[in-house]
């Protein structure tokens, strides 16, 4: 076992690795590493600034359109939406000027919203469902043609938001588990793909956001009890996520299960217990933590660090018992985790000794 971090040079000349690459591959790898050192993508603070600016501007554009009275009929909104959306996409492809890129993002946000609402108004019977269907139709098309990270990240999230609003409106909360299942499958496909494409990168992070966000929202409804119509149990989602997390362990372990049988048994049994006794959100936070560490992805790790405490607080808050019992449960949970930690240490020592 190597205790100090290796450089790439040391890795390439490692006794277990050197026979797996050809000598000419080293020059290709070197060229690629030089390319990686020149950032091709905007850093995250630029994306955040860009997203906030365009979103605020699109709000003001939408307010302006509202004030002009265009929104009074579908025959006003739909052409308006197209006039914003299509030139917005065109401007982004035609120019690299920052102001125009920002303008195009604001136009695409406003145009997407206007078009979605306009199409929905045509279907007067069920506007929310129509808005959702319209957005689900428009979003993939714009995603394909409009190469903007912020739009590609936010648009799928907006689709999920519409689904949630529809569920709340119709009080069809059983559909939550179908939504979780779809998000879980998408997350599994995108995050566990062998090779990830830059085209789907924004969608990947969008899915990594929507899954815990959906669970957080419904956990809130169930725990805080401000929405009395919500009586849907969360155990079907717990089962799905328990299965998903266990699959993740096997996927990440890459076939080294035989060497780590005890640890795998401990991990699987702990996960099953967590699935039974805690909220599904905690399972998602653990999955994000593992994926973040496995891929060296700081964004996924940040999501995990943000969502985990929140899910834990919601879980203990919602326990139907007094503060005294809650305190014992908290202390007991803490001792259990420290016990698991100690068990891992002992398993590792045994493995080293044998």
């Amino acid at each position, binding site marked *: 076992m190597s205790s100090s971090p290796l450089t790439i040079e040391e890795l390439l000349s490692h006794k277990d690795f050197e026979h797996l690459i050809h000598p000419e591959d080293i020059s290709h790898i*070197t060229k690629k590493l030089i390319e990686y050192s020149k950032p091709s993508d905007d850093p995250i603070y630029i994306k955040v600034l860009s997203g906030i600016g365009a979103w605020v501007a699109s709000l003001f554009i939408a307010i302006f359109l509202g004030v002009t009275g265009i929104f009074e009929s579908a025959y006003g909104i739909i052409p308006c939406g197209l006039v914003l959306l299509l030139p917005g996409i065109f401007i982004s492809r035609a120019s690299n000027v920052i102001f125009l890129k920002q303008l195009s993002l604001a136009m695409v946000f406003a145009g997407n919203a206007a078009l979605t609402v306009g199409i929905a108004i045509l279907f007067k019977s069920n506007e929310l469902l129509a808005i959702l269907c319209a957005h689900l139709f428009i979003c993939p098309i714009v995603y394909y043609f409009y190469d903007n990270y912020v739009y590609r990240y936010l648009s799928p999230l907006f689709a999920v938001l519409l689904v949630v609003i529809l569920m709340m409106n119709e009080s069809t909360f059983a559909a939550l588990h179908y939504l979780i299942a779809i998000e879980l499958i998408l997350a599994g496909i995108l995050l566990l793909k062998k090779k990830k494409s830059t085209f789907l990168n924004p969608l990947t992070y969008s899915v990594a956001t929507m899954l815990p966000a959906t669970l957080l929202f419904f956990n809130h409804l169930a725990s805080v009890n401000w929405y009395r119509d919500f009586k849907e149990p969360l155990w079907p989602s717990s089962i799905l996520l328990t299965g998903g997390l266990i699959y993740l362990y096997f996927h990440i372990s890459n076939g080294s299960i035989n060497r780590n049988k005890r640890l795998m048994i401990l991990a699987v049994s702990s996960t099953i217990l967590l699935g039974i006794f805690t909220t599904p959100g905690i399972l998602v936070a653990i999955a994000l*933590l593992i994926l973040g560490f496995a891929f060296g992805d700081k964004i996924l790790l940040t999501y995990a660090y943000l969502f985990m405490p929140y899910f834990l607080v919601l879980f203990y808050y919602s326990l139907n018992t007094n503060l005294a019992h809650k305190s014992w449960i908290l202390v007991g949970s803490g001792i259990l985790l420290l016990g698991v930690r100690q068990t891992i240490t002992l398993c590792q020592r045994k493995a080293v000794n044998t």
Partner: protein
Amino acid sequence: MEEKLDTTVLKQLASIKIIHKLYNDDLLSDEAFKTASSIIQPTEHWIAWARKMLLLLGSSLILAGIIFFFAYNWSVMRKLIKFGLIEVGIISCLFGSYQLGLKKLSGKILLLSASILIGVFLAVFGQTYQTGADAFTLFVGWSFLIFGWVIISKFAALWIVWIILINTGLILYWNQVLDTRNSLESEFLFMALAIINISFLFLYEVGNKKQYEWLKNIWPRGLLLISILIYLSIPTTKLIVEVELEEGFFGTLFWIILIIFGYRYYRFKIIDMNSIALIILNICVIALIFLGRILFDISDDGGMILFFAFVVLGVISTAIYWLKNVAKKMKNENTEDDQ
């Protein structure tokens, strides 16, 4: 003639992220990828990481449980038991910390737990002996009592907890003592808070420059800078919105000085793009509030709303252009230094 490649890139640390990138770009076979992953992230690394996470989570839950326990039971418990249990908890944490040593994370976390329990002790003391003291005395006393531990801990998280206590103590002191005497404008509170946090930020930067191991993470810088910018943005925003020079003038002046100095410091001394981005974002927010105030005072019809949308885009685009420019210049300066 074959181009000579710069092989210094091979001297960088091999991270799992780079391995994934090389694999995505078809430069590693499936087997090479698996082997590289197992070399860089062997099972032992996973185990060490899992142990660290379990320690952080487990100790947080135990601490939360203890706090809840006292919250529930304090009214029915006898004084002796209340104080006895907390004191046993503090002594146990201190003993454990001493045994494990402050070089280990577990030792530092036990010291942090003992520090939190001091606060629990003071809260229970205040409740039991109803002295009528203001709430700020709890936080001030707490920060005073744990100061020695904070110094020896070399633990950024404990320092941040201590700074939060100082900030809370000052805010409560202002509200409960100074404000009741109507002696000072609230902008001086925000200025005082900013000065305190700037002092700590300065100490952090000194320690970071000296490459102290426990200050290598940059999150304390981000946290402190955000708090300073928020504190000084409040009187500045108030001055712009209410336009009363009696309140907000000095706070705004201080904000301007901080922005200029902070920008120069992180641009030329420390060279941290994230901090520069935070400062620029803060400038954008204040600038937009200022411009919005002026424009919507002139007119608030549809045309002005549309115009303001373009103003927003203009300000943000300028900020992005500035940041990209600065990043490029910093990179060129780094390359020149390396040569």
